[in-house]
């Protein structure tokens, strides 16, 4: 089921949180609404499922305009951040709830609940109560309850935020597996770029109530439309250097260092103010240009090691490399910089 938002506007009292947003989620796609807290991503989600009434525009499920349909009749499945399981009901009753309020027959409910429990791997938990489950199990129950009604859209509101790191990894792939197996259209709200990138077909990145870019994770990482997107994606984050073009294919950082520009920008006129983004993986691995500096920080991360390199004039570049312990704090290094992969943004923050 395709979900379309047309000029969607949401205000709380006098504050406009989202102004004329347009978004289309394709049938069977899993789309992430990614952004920092307060960017309006959860508001959008709650508007889609009908918990919040919209103040302007339209929400379409397929061709059906559901803008004024109450949430009971929208046929959406929602997984809430705190799972919102009903504590007084067993797992079975929790999952059966959407079916039993609809008035399905007992054998039907039994069959559907068993089927969805098998899909989410919680068959043996059906007799327990939510309080007797671990976080990951509660997550699966919430997912089963959201899916049991065969909703048109599955909405996930920060579903992994309350899990510990290991479970988060496990549930990430589980949710994706279940979404792919059911072929349901899903929208995932998250502030975690790794979740968004690893689970979703496409990412809609939001800031201050606005969608900045919609793209596949790879495209978005490689070609962010602006500084905000470039800064939001990537861990460890990108390093932004402010400066000006020299006019001869180089970039002069305001502290004084001169770095090469990518070939596609070599023709830029001189003295144009720019921001140059250097991702850690593009410094220290490969490339034609060599940059000299002093190791000012070392962070071993097991498989990789993260370095901060301070150049002579104080500019700090970040480098991530396969684990190595031959370089130590305070050591002078000369590492390659892959100039072609550098990202450049104009004064307004747009990519150039």
């Amino acid at each position, binding site marked *: 089921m395709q979900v379309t938002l047309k000029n969607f506007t949401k205000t709380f009292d006098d504050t406009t949180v989202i102004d004329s947003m347009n978004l289309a989620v394709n049938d069977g796609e899993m789309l992430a609404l990614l952004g920092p807290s307060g960017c309006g991503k959860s508001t959008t989600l709650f508007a889609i499922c009908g918990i919040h009434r919209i103040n302007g525009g339209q929400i379409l499920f397929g061709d059906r305009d559901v803008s004024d349909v109450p949430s*009971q009749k929208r046929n959406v499945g929602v997984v809430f951040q705190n799972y919102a399981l009903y504590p007084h009901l067993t797992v079975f009753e929790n999952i059966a*709830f959407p079916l039993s309020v*609809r008035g399905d027959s007992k054998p039907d409910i039994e069959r559907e609940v068993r089927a969805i429990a098998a899909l989410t791997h919680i068959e043996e938990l059906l007799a327990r109560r939510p309080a007797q489950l671990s976080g990951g199990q509660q997550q699966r129950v919430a997912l089963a309850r959201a899916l049991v009604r065969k909703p048109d859209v599955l909405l996930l509101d920060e579903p992994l935020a309350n899990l510990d790191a290991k479970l988060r990894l496990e549930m990430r792939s589980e949710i994706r597996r279940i979404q792919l197996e059911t072929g349901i259209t899903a929208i995932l709200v998250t502030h975690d770029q790794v979740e968004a990138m690893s689970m979703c077909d496409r990412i809609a990145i939001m800031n201050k109530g606005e969608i900045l870019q919609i793209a596949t994770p790879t495209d978005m990482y490689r070609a962010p439309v602006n500084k905000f997107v470039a800064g939001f994606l990537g861990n460890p984050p990108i390093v932004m250097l402010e400066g000006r073009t020299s006019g001869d294919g180089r970039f002069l950082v305001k502290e004084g260092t001169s770095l090469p520009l990518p070939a596609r920008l070599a023709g830029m006129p001189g003295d144009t103010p720019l921001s140059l983004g250097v991702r850690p993986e593009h410094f220290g691995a490969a490339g034609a240009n060599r940059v000299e500096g002093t190791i000012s920080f070392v962070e071993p991360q097991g498989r990789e090691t993260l370095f901060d390199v301070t150049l002579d004039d104080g500019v700090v570049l970040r480098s991530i490399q396969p684990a190595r312990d031959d370089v130590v704090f305070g050591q002078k290094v000369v590492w390659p910089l892959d100039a072609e992969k550098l990202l450049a943004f104009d004064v307004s923050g747009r990519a150039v």
Partner: protein
Amino acid sequence: MRTRTSLLGLAFVSPALALLFAFFLMPVVLTTVFAFTNMSTSTGITGGSHVITGNLLRDLGNAGVDDDIVAALSEGSFSVTPETLAAAAEAGVEPRFLGEIESSLMGQSFEDARSFESALKALPSRPTRIRDLKLATEPFERSILNTRYSSRAAMETAIASMVPDAPVDTVSAIAEASYTGWRWIDGGNFQTLLDRPETIRIVLNTVFYVAATLAFNVFVGLFLAITTFYLPKTGAGFFSVLWLLPRITPVVLYAVMWKWFTWDNGFLYVIAEQLGLPAFNYMKGSVPTAWATIILVNGFVGASFGMILFSGALRAIPVQQLWASEVDGASRWQQIRRIILPQLRWPILFVTSYQTLSLLSSYEQIWLTTNGGPGSTTTVWALEAFNTALNNYTGNLEYGMGAAMALILVAVGLILSILYLRMFRFDELVNKPRIEF
């Protein structure tokens, strides 16, 4: 070290324990003690003395004591003995007159006042005024009637001297019956309650009152809590305060307002009259309206209590659960019925049990409004106990009987509490605080 710590703890707790004992346990202990006595205004709560009264003699006669003995006890006689002379000297009878009495009448006895007075009149230095003469006879009177004896032995001696041929056990029984203080009567009060025809009526009244008021409390409380829960915030605050008024209004003022509302020429009366409906004193004019008044007066107080607790519990349900039930397709009624009410189980049980106990022992509002009337149709157990022990119209307050009635109330309350605790497994509910994320 451990013992020292616990001793220190005990020392710190001891003032609280002493206060607890004085103010909480002592009343219960005293009630229990009183319940097995016949204490009343006439017996007092300290000891008494032994005295034979006219009423007692009549009761003794009715109880089958020999008429001769009763007659003998009721008679008085006058005799001149060293004791009576001494008493007369003490009472201030003129010494010369006294000397003449001693010398001429010593050892004599007179059947009645008239013969003694005529004997005295023969003496030369008799008082000139008849009144003084009559006063002078008094110390010589030997009568057991209305004379106080501080101990039982003294009473027995006195009886024996009046009726020397009376059997010993009769004397002892009379002396026993002449005691004016309170005494232990074992289960006498409870037996009396069992035998009284109005007891069953009061019990039924109490059961009806508690059940009806409780139902009103819980259902109206729930209704108010749920409706205010779904109201917009500003309106909800206003209504919460409105429903709290019965609870925060001083009880007497609240009762007076109900009087204005329901009495002759009160609010309801005037409206009913305008509409051509029967207009009368609804509070005391008929049994159904009297009951309605009592149940509403108490019901609104309790309903606001229920509402506060239920509202708190409602707000404790994470809003995501309500959202989840909505997107799961539950209508508002299904949401209330299947998500909200099951989670209000604990507060509902708490209000039910707490209100049962407090309603069982409450009488203030009834006392201030219908006062159990018309007749005793709305008299409940607690009100009857209060009236018996502390508010008797004739002035004889029956502490013992009142305490017995109160003790029954305490026992019923205890049994109900235990039942509630068992039935609702409070411990289990309390032991499992659940913080849901």
